[in-house]
C-alpha cells in the first residue's frame, strides 16, 4: 500500500474521529468523575447490537433503532451503576472489565438473538446476509453528492463520513468542555480527587457519579453506532476489551485531564496504530506479511512505551499535575 494513499488516511481519519468520541465518553467517567471504567466497550457493543437487531429483525427505522440503542446502553450503565458505584476504584475497574466481557460473551453465545460468532451478518438467519446500514449509506451518499456539488469536484464517501464524525466530535467536546468548566464539572473533579472530601462539603457523590456514568454510556453508544455504520459488518470480536484500552491510550497520549487533548490523542494513536501498517519497505519487506503483522504490534507497543518514557504527561498534559499524589 502506498504511504500517501489518501483513501487509506481518510479511513484512518474516520476511525480516529469515532475513537475521539469513544474516548470522550471515558473522559467524562474517568478524568472528570474518577471512575476507572474498564468496560467502556460494553456501551459500544450494546448500542451496535441493539441497533442492528432492531433494523434487521424488526425493520425498525434506523433513527428510531439508534435512539433505542442509546437507551439500551444507558440501561446497561444503570445496571452496572448499582453495584459498581459502591465499589472502591480498584474493585470498580475489575467489575467493569467483567461487565464488558459479559456483554461480549452474551453476544457470542446467543446466536438466535445476536447472530453469534458470525456477528451482524448472521442476524437474518443462515443463508441470508443481513445488512443494517442501507439507510445510513443512503444518507451518506446524499450528503456526499451534496458536498461534491458544493465543492465542485468529487468527494469520497469516507471523506464525508470523516467530516461528519469530526464535526460531531468537536461539538460534543465543546459541550463537555463547557460543562467541565461549570460548577457541575467542579464537583465531578472534586469527586475524582477525593469523594469523601466532596461529601464532607455536602455534595451528593452517588448522584454525580451516576450522571457521569450515564453520559459516558451515551457517548460510548454514539461511538459504537458510528463504528458499526462505518464498518458495515461487525462481530463480537470487534468489541474486545482492547477497545477500552485504546480509549485510555488516547486520553493518556493526549494528556490526562485535558479535554481538548482528546482529538490530539485520537489522531496520534491512530497514526501510530495504522501508520505502522505501511512499514512494508526494505528491509522490512524481507519478512513475510504474516510475521510483519505481529512485528507491527510489537512496534506499536514499543512506540507507546517510548512516548510515555519521554513525555509521561502526554502531548498536552501538565507534568506538575502528574507528580501531585492524590
Amino acid at each position: 500500500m502506498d504511504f500517501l494513499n489518501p483513501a487509506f488516511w481518510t479511513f484512518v481519519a474516520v476511525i480516529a474521529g469515532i475513537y475521539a468520541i469513544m474516548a470522550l465518553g471515558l473522559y467524562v467517567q474517568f478524568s472528570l468523575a474518577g471512575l476507572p471504567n474498564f468496560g467502556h466497550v460494553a456501551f459500544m457493543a450494546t448500542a451496535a447490537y441493539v441497533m442492528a437487531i432492531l433494523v434487521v429483525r424488526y425493520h425498525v427505522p434506523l433513527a428510531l433503532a439508534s435512539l433505542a440503542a442509546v437507551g439500551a446502553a444507558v440501561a446497561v450503565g444503570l445496571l452496572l451503576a448499582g453495584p459498581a458505584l459502591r465499589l472502591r476504584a480498584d474493585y470498580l475497574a475489575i467489575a467493569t472489565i467483567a461487565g464488558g466481557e459479559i456483554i461480549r460473551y452474551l453476544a457470542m453465545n446467543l446466536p438466535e438473538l445476536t447472530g453469534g460468532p458470525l456477528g451482524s451478518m448472521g442476524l437474518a438467519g443462515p443463508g441470508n446476509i443481513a445488512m443494517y446500514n442501507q439507510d445510513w449509506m443512503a444518507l451518506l451518499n446524499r450528503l456526499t453528492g451534496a458536498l461534491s456539488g458544493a465543492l465542485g469536484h468529487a468527494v469520497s464517501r469516507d471523506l464525508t463520513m470523516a467530516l461528519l464524525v469530526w464535526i460531531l466530535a468537536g461539538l460534543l467536546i465543546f459541550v463537555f468542555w463547557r460543562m467541565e468548566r461549570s460548577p457541575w464539572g467542579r464537583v465531578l473533579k472534586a469527586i475524582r480527587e477525593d469523594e469523601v472530601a466532596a461529601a464532607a462539603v455536602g455534595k451528593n457523590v452517588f448522584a454525580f457519579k451516576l450522571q457521569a456514568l450515564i453520559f459516558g454510556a451515551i457517548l460510548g453508544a454514539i461511538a459504537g453506532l458510528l463504528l458499526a455504520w462505518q464498518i458495515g459488518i461487525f462481530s463480537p470480536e470487534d468489541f474486545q476489551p482492547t477497545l477500552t484500552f485504546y480509549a485510555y491510550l488516547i486520553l493518556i497520549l493526549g494528556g490526562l485531564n485535558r479535554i481538548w487533548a482528546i482529538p490530539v490523542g485520537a489522531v496520534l494513536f491512530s497514526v501510530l496504530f495504522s501508520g505502522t501498517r505501511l512499514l512494508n519497505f526494505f528491509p522490512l519487506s524481507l519478512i513475510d506479511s504474516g510475521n510483519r503483522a505481529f512485528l507491527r504490534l510489537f512496534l506499536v507497543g514499543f512506540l507507546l512505551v517510548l512516548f510515555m518514557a519521554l513525555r509521561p504527561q502526554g502531548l498536552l498534559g501538565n507534568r506538575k499535575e502528574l507528580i501531585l499524589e492524590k
Partner: protein
Amino acid sequence: MLAAPRGGAVLLEIHDLGKSFGGVAAVDGASFGVTEGSITALIGPNGAGKTTVFNLVSGFIRPDRGTVRFAGRDVAGARGDAVARAGLVRAFQAPRVLTRMSVLENMMLGAKDQPGERLGMSWIAPRRVAKREREVHARALELLHLIRLADLANDYAGTLSGGQRKLLELGRALMSEPRMILLDEPMAGIAPVLGQQLLQHIRDLRTRNMTVCVIEHDMDVVMSISDRVIVMDEGRVIAEGTPDEVQRDERVIEAYLGRLGTVGVGGPPRGDAA
C-alpha cells in the same frame, strides 16, 4: 476564658450513641450536648472514641444505636453530604484537600446553593449560575485573604504544606456557611506560627455565632479556647463541664493517669487518636 456555657440553645445533642467494630465497642453509649455559639472541646485518651463520635455525627459511619439531633432534626444514619447540607460540616484529622485542583477551586467547591451544580443549569440559566459564581468567587478570595492563602489561590492544593492544607480545609468548610463545624485535631502536625493563626480563626468563629466542636490533645489549647470540655474514655462520656471543672475532676485525672499507669510508657497520652 468563659467560665460558663453561653445561654444559647443546644444545637447538637447526641444520646446513647453506640458503634462497634467487630467485638470492639469504639463508642458505647455516649451522650452529650453542644450549645449553640460555643466552642466545645472533646478530649480523652487515645482510643476513647472521639474521632468515631465525629464520624457518626457527621454521617460518615452509621451508628449501631442512639440518636443524633442537630438543630432539631434527627440526623442519625443520614449520609455525610446530607448532614453537611444541614449545616454541620467537618474537617478531617488528616486534611483532605483536592490536590490536583487549585486552592481557589477547593474553596469554591465548598459553597452551597450554586444552581450550576445541577445538571444542565449552565445551559438553561447561565446568568443565574454566573451571578452566583461571582459571589462565590468573591467570598472565596475574601476567606483566602483571611486565612492568608490568597497568594497561593491559583496553585495546586497539592503543593501546600500540611498546615496550609488544614487552613484550606477550614476555609472550604467555612465557604458553606455552616452552623456548626467539627474540627478533628486542628493543631496536630502544624507549624507553631500557623497553629497560632488557626487558633485565632477558631476563636473568631465564635464571635460570628458559629458553633465549634473540636478534638484536641494539647491541654493548653483546650483550656484556652473552649467554653466547655467533654471528656470521653472507653467510648463513654465520663465528665463534662468548664475547663476548670474538668481539670479538677477525679475521673478525668484517673482516666488519663490510669491509662498511663497500665500502658507504662512516659509522656502524656497524645498524638494520633483512634
